């Protein structure tokens, strides 16, 4: 079965065609600058059979981009998909597992649009378009929030009056679930333990968003992101945690208008807000090793980023207990030995020790960078959300038949 995985960004559409059950990637690509015209024209970069082609064409919406992608795939009879797997960022309280899309699913999806205002609406529009043009192609929605449906009530609740939480559906949802689950399974394989017995902390450190997941017996029991992806760690442009009273103060400064504050905390904070020059921690992390460097914006940005991470790692190590592995994944987690080293140093009271050389010379994934004496394995694992979605789509369809 050939599964086309579609991953909607705010202005991009990533896709991967995966042969299941052997997980072979047949084609992949990305439609960029989807939406209103920008300085550069929108295009599709498509890779298959070791060839890369670029098609330039104005695509003003995700459904239009999808039509173009299908044109490319349909031109080769070995690349026509048998099913589609959609990544949906936020499934609210309604979806705790991958779901085959029907009219009633679509209705519920419309209800959760606003929970992820940037990501959900284009995904839902795309699904409607797919149903219209390919009514016979089975489609499965895979939710970033689903893996976190096992977070217990005391960890997903906020300490605010119940009637408010119920009225507005306020609670921690958690994100990056597909990735956390995927690397947890990889880690269990690597360590040769059943996933149902894996206690781990997964650190999904992306170049954009980032979250930590506390995993007990293979299940998510907490995630640093909350009701939205704004809570938790310091990210590329998101502030992460901030005193609610400061938020109220910022609202007052903006005459009660929420939009500019949301935009400030989501788009102009984090590494970008502090450094003013970059939103990528890797551009400025080198200032850590320069001891005699005077205090600078960059150094402060790096210190704040790492400190928040360290606090959450400690918090989750205590929460899970008897942790077998700390997993680093996604762009920063996989490619920044400096971040891994800073985070894992000085954690002796948790019995955790990183191997300096292994960490720097790592070139094989999954890899173990912990010192032999460390009670906790420190693993670096490449995440692959599209592959994980393809697998889930396949499993869901097989189970149905």
């Amino acid at each position, binding site marked *: 079965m050939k599964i086309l995985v579609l991953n909607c960004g705010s202005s991009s559409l990533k896709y991967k065609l995966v042969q299941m059950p052997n997980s072979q990637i047949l084609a992949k690509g990305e439609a960029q600058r989807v939406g209103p015209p920008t300085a550069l024209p929108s295009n599709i970069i498509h890779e298959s059979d070791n060839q890369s082609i670029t098609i330039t064409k104005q695509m003003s919406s995700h459904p239009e981009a999808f039509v173009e992608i299908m044109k490319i795939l349909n031109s080769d009879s070995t690349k026509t998909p048998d099913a589609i797997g959609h990544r949906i960022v936020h499934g609210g309280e309604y979806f705790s597992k991958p779901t085959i899309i029907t009219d009633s699913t679509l209705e519920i999806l419309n209800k959760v649009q606003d929970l992820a205002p940037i990501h959900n609406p284009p995904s839902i529009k795309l699904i409607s378009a797919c149903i219209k043009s390919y009514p016979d192609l089975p489609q499965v929605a895979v939710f970033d929030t689903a893996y976190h449906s096992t977070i217990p009530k005391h960890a997903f609740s906020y300490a605010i009056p119940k009637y408010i939480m119920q009225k507005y559906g306020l609670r921690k949802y958690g994100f990056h679930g597909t990735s956390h689950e995927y690397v947890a399974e990889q880690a269990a394989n690597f360590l040769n333990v059943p996933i149902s017995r894996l206690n781990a902390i997964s650190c999904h450190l992306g170049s954009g968003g980032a979250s930590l997941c506390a995993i007990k017996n293979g299940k998510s029991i907490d995630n640093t992101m909350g009701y939205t992806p704004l809570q938790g760690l310091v990210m590329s442009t998101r502030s992460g945690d*901030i005193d609610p009273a400061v938020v109220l103060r910022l609202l007052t400064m903006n005459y009660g208008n929420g939009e500019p504050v949301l935009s400030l905390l989501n788009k102009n904070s984090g590494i970008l807000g502090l450094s003013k020059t970059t939103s990528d921690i890797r551009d400025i992390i080198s200032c850590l090793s320069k001891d005699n460097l005077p205090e600078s914006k960059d150094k402060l940005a790096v210190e704040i980023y790492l400190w928040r991470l360290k606090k959450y790692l400690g918090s989750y190590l205590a929460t899970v207990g008897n942790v077998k592995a700390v997993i680093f994944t996604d762009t920063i987690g996989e490619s920044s030995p400096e971040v891994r080293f800073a985070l894992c140093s000085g954690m002796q009271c948790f019995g955790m020790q990183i191997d300096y050389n292994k960490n720097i010379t790592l070139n094989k994934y999954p890899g173990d960078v912990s010192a032999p004496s460390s009670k906790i394995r420190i693993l670096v694992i490449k995440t692959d959300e599209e592959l994980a979605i393809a697998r889930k789509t396949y499993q869901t369809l097989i189970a149905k038949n």
Partner: protein
Amino acid sequence: MKSSLSPGKRIKLLLQKINMNILTLNPTTNKFKFSLIDIPSKDIHLHGEFIDSITPEIISENLQSVFYKVCNFLNNKNHQRLDVIVVRAIYGGDEFTEPTIVNPYTINKLTKLMPAAPIHTPALITTIQKCANLWPDTPVVLAFETSFFADLPAREKFYAIDTQITHFTFARRQGYHGLTHETALNYVTHKHQLWDKSKNNGNVISFYLGPKPELVAIMNHKPIMVTSGATPLEGLPGYTTAGEIDPSLVIKLASKPDWGIEKVNQILTQESGLKALAETKLTIAEIFSKKNKKVEFAKKYFLYKTLQAIGSAAACLGSIDVIVFSGEESNIGSAILENLKPRPTFLKTNSMKKPKVEFFNESIDQVLAEIGVTTLLKSRSTLRRPA
């Protein structure tokens, strides 16, 4: 001999030898408390509180009656005199990084705190002025809850927001029970000789238990991490305060029609925390003593957040030598530690270096009295020092 002692230790010894009467004043948002305390015994001879809003008129009236009570008491005690007045200040900003003896410039400096503490600062100024009026010859010491956190490392102090905002002091993290943490730290420092750096044992978790619980990680006598934020609202859930929540949620609620900033603030500070979790007003001790499903949930929630805060502090410190509980509910500390699930490895009995657990039971009034006398003694020793 004298020179071999640390300055703190020398003052500690001096404290045993002197005899003083101290009046402590504690103006909070809707309460004004006072105590007359004897040093070195720390016995509280007089104590009272006025529950009312703290307008200048009400403070003046109340202080007048405190004056008569104190005079009466001291006159009946062989006409002893009042040696020092200590006033607790909740917020000192960047202006006050240590306890201060009020001088002619103090009021001017205090007015700079007005934007950050608009309700508390006027009350403080009235209190000081009225004290100068009633007791013109008695020194007044201002003790700030935030001073202990003045040197909080930048990585902990600042939020990850636009530097145009971090520039404002209202957007910087600090602690709000600094006077108690500092005195509790002094207590364990002397008891366990933590000043001896060769023993490398200066990592302390100081946990204030009261209406607004606050946990601090202390390394080499300085706080490096605190659960509170720019205000006591962030961090652990309190009796009625929410603790950490998603910032977007605050914006979402405030943007709802018929909500608004004031209402959100009122809900998050007055209607949240343990009160919201258990759907009834509770102290921390009561989450252990009262038994019903809702209270059980509040207990589970509070212990969970506490465990996470301890984990964070442990990661910041690397190892923990002492855990000290303080505040009006300090005695519940043992129950909290015993009920943490899972039990952190570094707290297990078979752990190689199990931290010592201490309880600092003094009330804020006793803490204030000690700080008042210490501040006075320090200033005198500075004055006497030859030029």
